């Protein structure tokens, strides 16, 4: 039954770098928790899994954007820190560029950068802060998208619960209507019928 419903629902398209079995594992985890019944509940669970998958993708992207901005952030920071009074920025540009380039691979360069930073009571978090500042416009858009996805995920979770409650209520209502329409015998009527027969 479950396989049949899954083949009917459109597959979530994944990036080449994403693993289909990881998405399946995520959806299975949600299915185990929610235990969907019927195609509509399966639809909602598929939706929730897809939204969560996209949230994870965007969160990875946020980290990636900050990491990618680290080099230029360090370079800009070093230009500011290396400049002596009366010196122009371009005069320290080459040194800053070389240091920023080798900071990722060379331990000696890393140590040198730490020393420069500590001269101004700074540490490596200043590099990260500058990277975040430089990518703030992209991070802001990502944050808005994440907020929207999180609210949709919560709504979809609520939809499953409400759908079940509403379905149960509607079924009770339908059952009552059927009973009313059929004119089912009342208990006292049934008792009087039995006494007449006796």
């Amino acid at each position, binding site marked *: 039954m479950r396989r049949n419903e899954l083949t009917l629902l459109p*597959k*979530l398209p994944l990036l080449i770098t994403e693993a289909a079995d990881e998405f399946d594992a995520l959806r299975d985890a949600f299915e185990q928790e929610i235990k969907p019944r019927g195609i509509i509940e399966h639809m909602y669970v598929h939706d929730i899994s897809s939204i969560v998958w996209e949230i994870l993708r965007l969160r990875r*992207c946020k980290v990636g954007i900050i990491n990618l901005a680290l080099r230029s952030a360090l370079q800009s920071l070093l230009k500011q820190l290396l400049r002596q009074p009366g010196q122009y920025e371009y005069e320290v540009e080459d040194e800053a560029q070389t240091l920023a380039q080798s900071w990722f691979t060379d331990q000696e360069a890393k140590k040198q950068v730490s020393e420069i930073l500590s001269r101004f009571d700074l540490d490596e978090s200043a590099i990260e802060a500058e990277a975040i500042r430089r990518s703030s416009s992209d991070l802001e858009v990502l944050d808005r998208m994440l907020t929207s996805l999180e609210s949709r995920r919560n709504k979809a979770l609520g939809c499953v619960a409400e759908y079940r409650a509403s379905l149960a209520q509607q079924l009770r209502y339908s059952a009552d209507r059927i009973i009313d329409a059929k004119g089912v015998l009342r208990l006292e009527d049934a008792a009087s019928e039995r006494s007449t027969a006796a």
Partner: protein
Amino acid sequence: MASERQIAASRRNARKSTGPRSGAGKKRASRNAYRHGLTLSITSSAAYAKQLDRLVREIAGSTEDPILLERARAIAQAELELARVRRVKVALIERASAFGELDPPQAFSSVTQIIRLLNAIDRGRVPSFPEPVDSSATMPSQEPDRSAEAIRRVLPELRKLDRYELRAAARRDRAVSIFLIEKSIGPTNNCEAQNEPNFSQFIE
């Protein structure tokens, strides 16, 4: 205020502006409002129509009630639209990851550059053509940085697509609530259904 002569001239000119006349012109103008095709009905593709019918049948169950079938169709349609937006999103990210950007790089960044080049040719000089820009070369070579950079480059497009996704999801949720009400109470008792504390109130 325009004079009588000006008004008459405007009317004469307006009569001449009757839109494209050639077949190619009419065809091109018919696509003037086309942007991305996401608002096109999903049933316009045959492959989708088949998938849609199967989904409708699964949602509606064994019923032959045309109204219920129509409600089930609305749910299925919104669900497939949701899937389509998700596919478009992934396709854009993949394209940006492969080529570095969505639009092919322009050889000239402005009309002025082209004019300068043509002037140089006019004067009999050998112009220096701008170096072709390879946008993919500006992409990080390693994952996950490449994917992150690709997403960053298509963020404005992804943001717009988010709005379509949101609307499709809202349409589906509304369709589910109406389907549920009509399935249990029947399409003739809608007034009664509206007084019920139900799923639709949650959706709203």
